[in-house]
């Protein structure tokens, strides 16, 4: 009986989907360890963080826009990452500006792009998908306008930051980018849970009309959400440039979709108002581990890779959906019992 109650309360919890995601992640990891040699090395896990650092940051930003609801979404982020890398590379190679100055400049680019998009969306009530799609076109195009060829970054101190390794208690190492990603994630969690701004975003996502009637600053908050997304994309771009050390028009192609998928797997509803930030990192890690699996497997043809990625994603999402649906039944049952 006690056990049952315990399970029931876990199921009824708002973080249920998060639990499901984490458990499925652990199960996947366990299968990996059982199946492949070397999977159990701690560095495999750290690699997940290193490889997906910029995706984590970008996903955090996108999640802010998705929470605002009403179709809120930011699909310009991949292109912003590319643009930021290009600008970084261009500025570092062609000017004498100091690295911190350059980084601030490119972060500003992200903020400006986010602001313009947010302004169009919340003041003129334009559709987020279309505005940010245009933003995506614009940024990709601008990247090509700056340079159609790859620009290499060989500034020695910049390269040094990129190859810096942070020891993780002797079990391996992570990169500076991964550290930045974790910090961003923690800040985002705090902002969403413990600030007025964070809660207002959720309220808008729940019902924009109500939020406005309750006297919340809807327009301002929505703009800010897009600014944050732009900023995160730019910061993600900086971290991305530490991996790539170059600017190139095709960088971060399709990253927006990875980010959106990660966010959703982590428990975000695309209809808005529901998200759990710690879930997003697991959303990213799940996708990362699927790729790791495929690499460790090592015999798939190119096309099978795509199909298997798609299929695993699909199984995962269906499982999530079914468990959540089952949960709804269970909760209505348990509420009935407690009513008696």
């Amino acid at each position, binding site marked *: 009986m006690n056990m049952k109650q315990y399970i029931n309360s876990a199921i009824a919890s708002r973080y249920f989907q998060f639990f499901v995601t984490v458990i499925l992640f652990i199960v996947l990891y366990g299968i990996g360890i059982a199946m492949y040699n070397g999977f159990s090395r701690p560095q495999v896990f750290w690699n997940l963080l290193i490889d997906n650092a910029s995706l984590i940051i970008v996903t955090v930003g996108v999640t802010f826009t998705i929470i605002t609801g009403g179709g809120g979404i930011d699909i310009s982020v991949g292109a912003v990452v590319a643009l930021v890398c290009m600008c970084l590379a261009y500025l570092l190679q062609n000017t004498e500006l100091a690295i911190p100055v350059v980084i601030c400049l490119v972060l500003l680019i992200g903020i400006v792009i986010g602001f313009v998009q947010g302004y169009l969306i919340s003041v003129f009530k334009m559709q987020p998908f279309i505005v940010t799609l245009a933003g995506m076109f614009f940024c990709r*195009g601008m990247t090509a306008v700056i340079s159609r060829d790859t620009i290499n970054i060989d500034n020695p101190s910049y390269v040094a930051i990129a190859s810096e390794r942070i020891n993780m208690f002797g079990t391996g190492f992570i990169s500076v980018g991964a550290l930045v990603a974790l910090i961003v994630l923690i800040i985002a969690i705090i902002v969403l849970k413990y600030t007025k701004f964070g809660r207002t975003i959720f309220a808008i996502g729940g019902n924009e009309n109500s939020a406005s009637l309750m006297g919340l600053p809807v327009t301002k908050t929505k703009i800010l959400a897009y600014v944050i997304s732009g900023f995160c994309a730019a910061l993600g771009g900086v971290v991305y440039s530490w991996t790539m050390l170059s600017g190139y028009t095709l960088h971060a192609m399709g990253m927006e979709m990875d980010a959106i998928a990660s966010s959703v797997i982590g428990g975000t509803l695309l209809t808005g108002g529901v998200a759990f930030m710690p879930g997003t990192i697991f959303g990213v890690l799940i996708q990362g581990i699927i790729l790791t699996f495929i690499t460790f497997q090592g015999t798939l043809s190119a096309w099978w*890779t795509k199909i298997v990625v798609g299929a695993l994603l699909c199984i995962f999402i269906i499982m999530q*959906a*079914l468990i959540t649906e089952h949960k709804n039944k269970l909760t209505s049952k348990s509420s009935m019992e407690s009513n008696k």
Partner: protein
Amino acid sequence: MDKLKNFKSSSIFLPLVALAILVIFNIIFVPGFLDVEITQDGRLYGRVFDILNRSSSLIILSLGMTFVIATAGIDISVGAVVAISGAVCCSLIGGRGDGVAEYPMVVAMIAAIATGVVCGMWNGFLVAKIKIQPMVVTLILMVAGRGIAQLLTEGQIITVYYAPFSYIGGNIPGNIIPSPIIIAILMIALVVFILKKTSLGLFIQSVGINPTASRYAGINVALIIFLVYAFSGFCAGVSGLIESSLIRAADANNAGLNMEMDAILAVALGGTLLSGGKFYIGGSIIGAITIQTLTTTMYAMGVASDQLPVVKAIVVIILCLIQSKHFREIFNKSKKNTVKAVDKA
């Protein structure tokens, strides 16, 4: 007069104006824009037909997309389905150098379109029954779809030497109008017929606006959603035929690449809201033609394909801004104010 006013306030007015401006721009700045001639193999040749020809498959995709979006969904898998459909068709006809088809072309075509429908049904099933978010459902197929297409072609680009295959993307001998245009017109006719003769349009809008209330009113919401995605798959299947016939090959990697975005853009430019509800088929068609005209114009002006998106972005934003009710309100208010000021003075 009244009619004119009605037309002016109708949803199709703005997209049409935008298209008209683009066309005028072309006539002025692109030499030989209006030239039409008949080639040796008996086909209309010229920029205008080129644009119509190229926009045909986009138009077809945006027909399906309009319905999907009207139910408050989205289908970003259409590009991948185009690739799958092309792969099915070409691998059935086969890449035999002697120009002989392995299976009759009709069989291949039907199979290709049927594959598209199956893909759409898969999406529809997941959205309607398992209740997964449309963007995620179609994202799965978008990722896996190209893999499936490559699996069908075994990573090769199957070039089809069977001559009649090129009729789909070219023209049927003796008929000077390019086939894609004819196919697009047939598809539009089919959609118009459905909308006029059935209540599907009403149901789709109703489901898009308020699914719960629609269910209470006796509409089979899941069925409508399922049908809509299946139809989108059908459209993608047809598009896939045209796209693969245009290059006479199945290119699993590049067929229909990024077309989903263009189709969504076409629908949005046409005035349909991505949040679902009221939809405008006419607007979507005009939107599709506008996008293609813009692309072709930019190529003609020598803008590189990787820089072209900048122009596209600016045009899209301007168009949507003009369409935005709130922008117009704010704009009108300031205009009114100046008029008042003038009156006072």
